[in-house]
């Protein structure tokens, strides 16, 4: 099979753990780091070690955070009284980058899916419940994806918010910006029509 020396094969195996990296690209990356750019390799090793040691999860919003005070749980964000629930850190980043929303977040790290063994414990719903009961949150915005699992999750989040007497809203779904009705699937069009807003 391969004729790598032990250290080299360990490096290549480690690089293959990255998404989208197969054996060939892993070999190319390893040779590049070892041969052409050892300084970059050192930087990468230090950054990785530093990140692993210094980045944890925020206890209240479950987003990655570096310091004790999470940048998405600041007093200024709390003051707005809005809490947006998303499935993944990437969803949070998309909302931060693409919208003017500057309230708090809660990251589920998944969605309800019994067939994959993802339930209330995996999603940290008890943490969310505590946040809702603290009384700071006036409105919970449910921004889970419009899939079967995402909708089921949204239903349970709404039940939790109602039990905690917190107002709850769901993000709209419908025709994308710049889209054409002709090419939108029937399910999306149905939602777009039933969720229409006064113009």
């Amino acid at each position, binding site marked *: 099979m391969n004729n790598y020396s032990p250290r080299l094969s360990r490096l290549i195996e480690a690089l293959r753990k990255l998404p989208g990296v197969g054996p060939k690209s892993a070999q190319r990356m390893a040779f590049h780091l070892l041969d052409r750019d050892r300084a970059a390799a050192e930087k990468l090793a230090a950054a990785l070690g530093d990140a692993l040691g210094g980045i944890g999860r925020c206890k209240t919003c479950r987003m990655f955070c570096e310091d004790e005070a999470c940048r998405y749980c600041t007093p200024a964000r709390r003051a707005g009284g809005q809490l947006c629930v998303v499935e993944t850190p990437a969803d949070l980043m998309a909302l931060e980058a693409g919208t003017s929303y500057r309230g708090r977040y809660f990251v589920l790290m998944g969605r309800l899916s019994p*067939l994959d063994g993802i339930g209330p414990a995996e999603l940290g719903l008890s943490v969310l419940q505590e946040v809702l009961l603290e009384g700071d949150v006036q409105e919970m915005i449910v921004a889970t994806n419009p899939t079967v699992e995402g*909708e089921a999750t949204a*239903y349970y989040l709404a039940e939790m918010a109602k039990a905690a007497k917190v107002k709850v809203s769901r993000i709209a779904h419908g025709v994308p910006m710049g889209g054409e009705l002709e090419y939108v699937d029937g399910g999306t069009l149905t939602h777009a029509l039933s969720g229409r807003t006064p113009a």
Partner: protein
Amino acid sequence: MSRARIQLQPAWVLKASAYSDTSLLVEAFTPSHGRIGLVARGARTAKSRPRALLQAFRPLLLSWTEAGDLGTLTGVEASPAAAFEFRGETVFSGWYLNELLLRLLQRHDAHPVLFEAYGEALAALIPTGERALRRFEMTLLAELGFGIDLPPDLDPSLHYFHRNGEEPVPGAADAEDSYSGRTLIALRDDQLETVEDLRAARRLLRGALAEHLGTKGLSTATMLRDLRRSLERVPTPGSGS
């Protein structure tokens, strides 16, 4: 090896999970090919059109090429019938049906009768709830060759012992595995109406299915219980927890 091409077969997605970096592994249920595993290449990329369609409880027409255990998805079209949109706990009933099929069907075993029963069960979930589940379980067991034998001459005033694979025999009312004749007749004729009959039928079918499910329970049922419990635990604000 020759690769069979299958065009626009009616199908339901039972489960779709991440597969390698950008693909989906779709477990689908079809009438003529039974339960199949299909790889949808590139379905998790931003521009993927099929991804929105590859959802559970949505009638689809799938095309794929067959090679070995896993096929490759080559086309997805929405069937003209509308997708079922289950709200709240009903979606768990739908997932329960999917889990039964995933656990109990072998891949590539054709089950046209069961396919029809699945579509009917989904359609009946909202109007008839649990009754639809019991009816589907009866069909599923029969299709697997473990049908529950309920003879036509049951007496509604008697109680019967039921053991898997055997005909019910009259017995005492308070014994374990004992069911009233009324329940068994209602189950046989798909006439389950009362809460007691539904509960007894669930007990009977759970026992019958457990024999084939092995030691691992069904996660849909466990998770629904967990969720109900976690919602009940919510203290009202200001009540001091």
